[in-house]
């Protein structure tokens, strides 16, 4: 074994040990807890980055406990570090560092255990992206879930966090149990838990109902984490009430990991069984992505609670990323990964920016904040750039990502897909643009006299109450503007690095090469990847990007005049679906399982 391999488990264990130090010595002063947490986050992120750099010739396989496979049967757990996995682990680390640095100034008072929870959350996410074992994925899925439930409820003095945490915990736990049933099905069929071994073992049988149901349960669990419609209700609740430094981790990387998990199982364990039904399965999954992107984009546009607005925009963008994975093609997956990178950094910056506004003004309602941001011009710039990144404006990382997805969509005969996705980008970008113009420039009508609908009024009441517990501050520490600004800068610059997108394309092609993956894991064969031809950004991609950017500007000015894009009845139906009632959410979850299950059964087992 080479030295680099040993870094993989260390990247997970370092934050875990930091969590122990922080929680075990909770009497230490807060500054020491912060130092331990930030130090561990930096160390672990560095390790992930080193792994990323060394994984370009094929996955780094590390058999924990030195349990190498015995005649092709995995005895233990392997960490299988490929570039996409190491990449998303590194993104996790970067966002955790940003979140921790930001929270040193953001919270007036916070208990030590908070930092311990952030550390176990980080460890869970890193391990989830590095592991090569299906049950291990479940364990770390649960670890990041439990930490996330708790981080949602940190602000126990308010009502929203309690309700948000309950809805989050119940929905995601049910999804996790579904995942476990799926694992049991696969284990009963293959007698294996290692992803590569499951894949090889499933190769020998034609896909039947068992494989279809297992695929449904496993993928739906990850899509619940990724907030695909109709499994998405928890996200708006949880993201809107979690404190800003936590929301950035949720939106920036946790939901992306849901899509990553789905992509991982689809391209390892299920790669062969779905091969004959690729066409039908693609249709089903793209359907999920499109519905998610469209429904959430409209919900996003009609929000006035700033964090809820960003939460719905996250759901919509996840719809776009899901489309990328759903096309089941190398180029589309590369697009999804690039898009997730750009979106994660930009959305992280926007969530932190919203936190800064809450810190300064004690409010989170777009209308209440009207004109309040005038003395934070840099933050305003961050918001506007963020809106453009969300609208996939030309040269943003999201733009390159989306053009790859569009490219793949065209070659898979989904010519209508780019137009639909452009509409979603325009709507979500417009919502943020509208809010920034109102908050930082004081533009737009005074809303008081124009709003009459009852749903609106209740929303206003709840969004006013939100800030009631936060004391406004007279000054904003420089750090609270600097961290979002740096993240946004990174989001913009990432798109300008010329080598980035081609290397993501290579990584995605390697990620989907399931024969090489299985060979590397089970027999230690060095993979031979065929060269990957980089895609060129086509002229139509530029046109769509220009259209979505222009559309965002147009819709934003439309929204500033207090106009809605949807008829009132439709808007009210959308609002009413988000009832905040956990029973409703589980009923919707079951409905989604039944619907998706029917389609998957039809597509895979036919």
């Amino acid at each position: 074994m080479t030295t680099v391999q040993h870094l993989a488990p260390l990247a997970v264990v370092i934050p875990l040990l930091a969590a122990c130090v922080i929680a075990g010595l909770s009497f230490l002063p807060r500054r020491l807890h912060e130092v331990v947490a930030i130090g561990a986050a930096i160390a672990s992120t560095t390790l992930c980055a080193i792994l990323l750099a060394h994984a370009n010739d094929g996955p780094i396989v590390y058999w924990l406990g030195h349990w190498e496979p015995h005649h092709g049967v995995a005895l233990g757990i392997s960490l299988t570090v490929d570039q996409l996995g190491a990449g998303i682990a590194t993104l996790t680390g970067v966002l955790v560092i940003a979140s921790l640095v930001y929270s040193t100034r953001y919270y007036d008072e916070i208990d030590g255990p908070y930092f311990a929870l952030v550390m176990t959350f980080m460890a869970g996410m890193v391990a989830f992206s590095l592991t090569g074992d299906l049950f291990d994925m479940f364990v770390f899925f649960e670890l990041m879930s439990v930490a996330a439930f708790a981080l949602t409820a940190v602000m126990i003095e308010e009502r929203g966090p309690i309700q948000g945490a309950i809805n989050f915990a119940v929905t995601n736990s049910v999804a996790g149990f579904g995942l476990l049933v799926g694992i049991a099905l696969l284990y009963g069929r293959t007698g294996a838990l290692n992803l590569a071994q499951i894949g090889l073992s499933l190769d020998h049988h034609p896909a039947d109902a068992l494989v279809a149901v297992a695929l449904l349960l496993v993928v739906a669990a990850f899509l619940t984490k990724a907030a695909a419609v109709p499994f998405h209700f928890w996200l708006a609740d949880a993201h809107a009430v979690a404190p800003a430094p936590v929301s950035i981790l949720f939106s920036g990387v946790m939901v992306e990991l849901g899509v990553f998990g789905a992509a991982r199982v689809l391209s390892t364990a299920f790669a062969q069984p779905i091969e004959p039904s690729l066409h039908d399965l693609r249709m089903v999954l793209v359907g999920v992505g499109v519905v998610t992107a469209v429904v959430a984009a409209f919900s996003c546009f009609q929000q006035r609670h700033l964090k809820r607005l960003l939460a719905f925009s996250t759901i919509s963008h996840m719809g776009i990323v899901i489309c990328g994975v759903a096309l089941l093609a190398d180029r589309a997956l590369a697009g999804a990964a690039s898009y997730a990178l750009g979106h994660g950094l930009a959305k992280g910056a926007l969530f932190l920016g919203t936190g800064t506004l809450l810190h300064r003004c004690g409010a989170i309602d777009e209308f209440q904040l009207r004109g309040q941001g005038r003395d934070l011009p840099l933050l305003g710039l961050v918001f506007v750039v963020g809106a453009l990144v969300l609208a996939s404006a030309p040269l943003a990382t999201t733009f390159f990502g989306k053009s790859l997805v569009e490219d793949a969509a065209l070659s898979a005969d989904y010519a209508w897909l780019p137009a639909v996705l452009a509409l979603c980008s325009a709507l979500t970008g417009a919502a943020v643009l509208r809010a920034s113009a109102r908050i930082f420039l004081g533009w737009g009508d005074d809303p008081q006299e124009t709003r009459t609908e009852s749903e609106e009024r209740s929303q206003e009441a709840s969004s006013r109450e939100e800030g009631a517990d936060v004391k406004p501050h007279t000054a904003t520490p420089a750090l609270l503007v600097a961290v979002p600004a740096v993240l946004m800068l990174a989001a913009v610059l990432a798109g300008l690095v010329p080598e980035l997108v081609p290397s993501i394309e290579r990584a995605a092609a390697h990620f989907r090469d399931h024969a090489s993956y299985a060979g590397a894991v089970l027999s230690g064969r060095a993979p031979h990847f065929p060269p990957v031809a980089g895609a060129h950004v086509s002229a139509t991609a530029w046109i769509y990007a220009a259209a979505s950017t222009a559309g965002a500007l147009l819709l934003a000015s439309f929204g500033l005049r207090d106009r809605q894009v949807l008829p009132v009845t439709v808007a009210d139906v959308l609002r009413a679906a988000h009832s905040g009632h956990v029973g409703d959410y589980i009923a919707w979850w079951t409905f989604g399982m039944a619907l998706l299950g029917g389609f998957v059964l039809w597509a895979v087992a036919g």
Partner: protein
Amino acid sequence: MTFLPYAVAAWLFVVGLYGIVTSRHLVHLAVCLTVVQSSTYLILLSTGYVRHGSAPIYADIPPVATAVDPVVQALTLTDIVVESTITALLLALAVQAMKRFGSVDPTFLRQLRG
């Protein structure tokens, strides 16, 4: 008999969901969640069961005896720990919900909507 455990487990999964959907009390809801999860124990252990096999503990049996699969048992152990932690967490949240909302009926938790 070859299908009984799976039928029971599938039934428990769905009936637990029914309990969650119709629950009017958060503690009741948390317990229903444990019922959903208990179905996974049954599925896991049943998939690894071997007819006439003994427990995979070689203190009591000769090394050549047929034993059931130890792996699913290890997985179920992990599963049980996960269950107890999630239940405990939900109970703590229920206590806080009572303090903040004056009720533990999900119908009256009405802060987040739209």
